[in-house]
């Protein structure tokens, strides 16, 4: 098999696997900081997808890269606010266990 470049599917598979690992961590973590890390993993998977499509399908007008820049911006804002909420929760509850944050449970 003679290939002149890495196939697009390889990047897509890596990003799919990364996204699913992120979802698994989001569902199964007890520590709130680890939940935030899983969200960052999922955002990175989406970014890899956007970059791969931008490079293989739209390599003249690279709009996927511009979208990736915006996703990185939103991820930074999300991390800052998420960790501030976490600190505030920790101050009130003295724990970071996800199972104890059930204030909105009906």
């Amino acid at each position, binding site marked *: 098999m003679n290939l002149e470049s890495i196939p697009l599917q390889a990047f897509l598979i890596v990003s799919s696997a990364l996204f699913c690992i992120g979802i*698994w961590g989001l569902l199964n973590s007890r520590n709130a900081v680890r939940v935030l890390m899983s969200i960052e993993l999922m955002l990175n998977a989406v970014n890899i997808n956007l970059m791969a499509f931008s490079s293989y399908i739209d390599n003249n007008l690279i709009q996927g890269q511009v979208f990736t*820049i915006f996703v990185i911006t939103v991820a930074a804002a999300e991390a800052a606010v998420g960790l501030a909420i976490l600190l505030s929760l920790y101050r009130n509850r003295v724990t970071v266990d996800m199972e104890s944050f059930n204030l909105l449970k009906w």
Partner: protein
Amino acid sequence: MSIAITTQFICFTVLSLVVLIGALGVVLLESIVYSAFLLGGVFMSVAGLYLLLNASFVAAAQVLVYVGAVNVLIIFAIMLVNKKEDLKPINDIKSRRVISTSICLTLLSLLIRVDLTKVWSLSSPQNSIGEESTIRIGEHLFSDYLLPFEVASVLLLMAMIGAIVLARRDVMSKDISTGLPVDQELIEKSSEPLLTNKN
């Protein structure tokens, strides 16, 4: 891309293995500190994947924002809340694990099936702009993506103000319940948690 194809394949394989094994380590390791440092490694490897895709500017932004800001923020949060605590055991943890793992594997198989069966209409690599991508991103940001660019600045300002408001500790001079002056140095240690778990 001027690197030989064999080198590209080797780089891609190594970087993807680092990304996937590091991500597994992030979600599976016991110690949250190891997870945070592995997360930094994952971010760096994703930046390497961007370099393989001819996007040097986004790779630099990834390193600066994710490794330099988000990862450091996460490590600081771990330092602030890292207390050894005995987690309460959950009754149906086994069934929960089984259900979530099966959901993730199903989603993964669906995504991989879509990735492999769909025939993407690839553009020819001849009209690739390659190293000029930074110039093109700048043109996009100041012409057709000008409004999102400006809105992003407002979003960052709002996130900054929101983080300050949420994380600030309100120091009171008087105790609310007794009216006595509060010893400011002991305010963290002596205060009862406001929202203790009643059950």
